[in-house]
């Protein structure tokens, strides 16, 4: 029943305009970055003069296109799935699925579907980019966009998550970081979905900003706590950023978001009437 419910909802949500538009918007950011890299490397003759292609990815701290993408991230991450609940209610699909699979399965499957959809939208374009960069650029080039010596950049970036993997196998490192980015996006979308099911969010417009509020509260915490590591999403999610980070705190934070999402959905299941 649960699998049925997931399949039913997934096939519906993946055809939604919002999902397709977001996917192409993310893909556009990626393609702009790829095109810029192509233009910049057009006249370079030697591999030794080229920048490391992995450091030129959209998710990298060096990408201008990635910088703009991150600015839109709080909106883009919720855009594909923010209104799914309101739309399901509006089109009565909710009643249809609930009557077929049961109330609990509808809600839990919805959470899973929101996660999968956001994960796909925020990973597939980046994987395409990794493949394209691998084909078009020589992966042996190891120049740093900062133009510092290789050993110095390794020293600066060594504190980043799984950096040892970058030294041993940079493509795998890029894939793993993209995978993590997808997971974080998925969890944020799940949290947003769990919040917007409550009656305060009567207008669709309200459903876009719980993640904004969350980031605002986090930026406020950063201001008053004077932490020695960054808690701003802008620096955490971009790879090769050299700001001090605390990955255990971030993992706990994501786990809390996940638990809160399940808890809120549990409350909703108890309160929700089929009719």
């Amino acid at each position, binding site marked *: 029943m649960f699998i049925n419910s997931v399949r039913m909802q997934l096939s519906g949500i993946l055809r939604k305009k*919002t999902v397709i538009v977001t996917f192409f918007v993310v893909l556009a950011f990626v393609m702009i970055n790829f095109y810029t890299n192509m233009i910049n490397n057009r006249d370079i003759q030697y591999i030794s003069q080229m920048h490391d292609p992995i450091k030129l990815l959209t998710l990298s701290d060096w990408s*201008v296109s990635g*910088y*703009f993408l991150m*600015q*839109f991230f709080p*909106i883009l991450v919720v*855009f594909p799935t923010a*209104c799914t609940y*309101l739309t399901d*209610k*509006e*089109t009565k699909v909710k009643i249809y699925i609930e009557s077929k699979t049961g109330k609990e399965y509808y809600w839990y499957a919805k959470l899973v579907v929101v996660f999968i959809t956001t994960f796909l939208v925020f990973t597939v374009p980046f994987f395409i980019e990794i493949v394209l960069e691998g084909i078009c650029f020589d992966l042996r080039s190891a120049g740093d966009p900062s133009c510092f010596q290789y050993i110095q950049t390794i020293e600066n970036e060594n504190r980043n998550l799984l950096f040892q993997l970058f030294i041993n196998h940079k493509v795998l490192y890029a894939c793993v970081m993209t995978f993590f980015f997808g997971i974080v996006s998925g969890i944020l979308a799940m949290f947003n979905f769990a919040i917007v099911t409550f009656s305060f969010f*009567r*207008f*669709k*417009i*309200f459903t*876009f*900003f719980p993640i*904004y*509020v969350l*980031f*605002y509260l986090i*930026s*406020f915490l*950063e*201001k*008053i706590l004077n932490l020695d590591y960054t808690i*701003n999403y*802008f620096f955490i999610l971009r790879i090769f950023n050299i700001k001090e980070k605390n990955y255990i705190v971030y993992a706990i934070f994501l786990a809390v978001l996940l638990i809160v999402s399940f808890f809120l959905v549990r409350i909703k299941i108890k309160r929700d009437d089929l009719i």
Partner: protein
Amino acid sequence: MKYYLRFLWIAFFCGAICILGFAVKNDGFFASDVICLFGMDEIGYFTQYLPQITYWFFPLLFFQAFFGSYIYRHFCTASIYFFSRYTKRTRWLFKEILRLFLFCCLYLFVMLISGLVVCSLVSKVKIDASIWKMFCYYMVIYSLYLFVVTLGINLLSIVFNSNIGFIVVEGINLFFIAAFAIAGNLFAPEGVILEQYEWIIKINPFYYLIFSMRNSNNDYLISMLLFMGIAALLLWCSFFVVNKHNFIESNQETGGM
């Protein structure tokens, strides 16, 4: 009306929260400095300022989200009953727009007052000569900015729906912020933007909100005139949008639920 008045509490909390990070100062504050803080006086055009820009921008974004459906909500449900009885749509729209603008002013005023109160509780706040000048500049420039963005969301929501209205207007807004914050990294190798690239920053409306970029009274006047111009243009558009709106397909939001 009553429903929207509750959002002034958010302005109060936002004002208090925003200022908390800056409120402790041994030698106290001039009141005009507090107003300048709300006017993003410590912001520059480099990416390291982006978290700070976002921090000060959030309260404005809240207003835009809450009031983004202020005029549009009338078109969601029962609009056909309402507008068939009240035929002077232009007059009605003018009243609604005026209320929206008053809310903009009220929201900013409450935010400023709460910021000043928090500052005076933690540090000493001295009233200086330039407070009224800065207060007027802040209120006029920021209320016009809020008004322009919120009216833009409302108009696009009426034409399309609230999804598109919010995403398009906020998308443009965020693009301008991002473009402002990266301008220095790209075009200011020695800390000051190169003369030949100054136009890039000057065509960005967000630049006209930043008080640290306003050096003289003339600069403030230019900001006011710019936002007044955009507001006038939107007002002109809004009369067309509302008068030409087809009520048969009026409920784009909830399908009558």
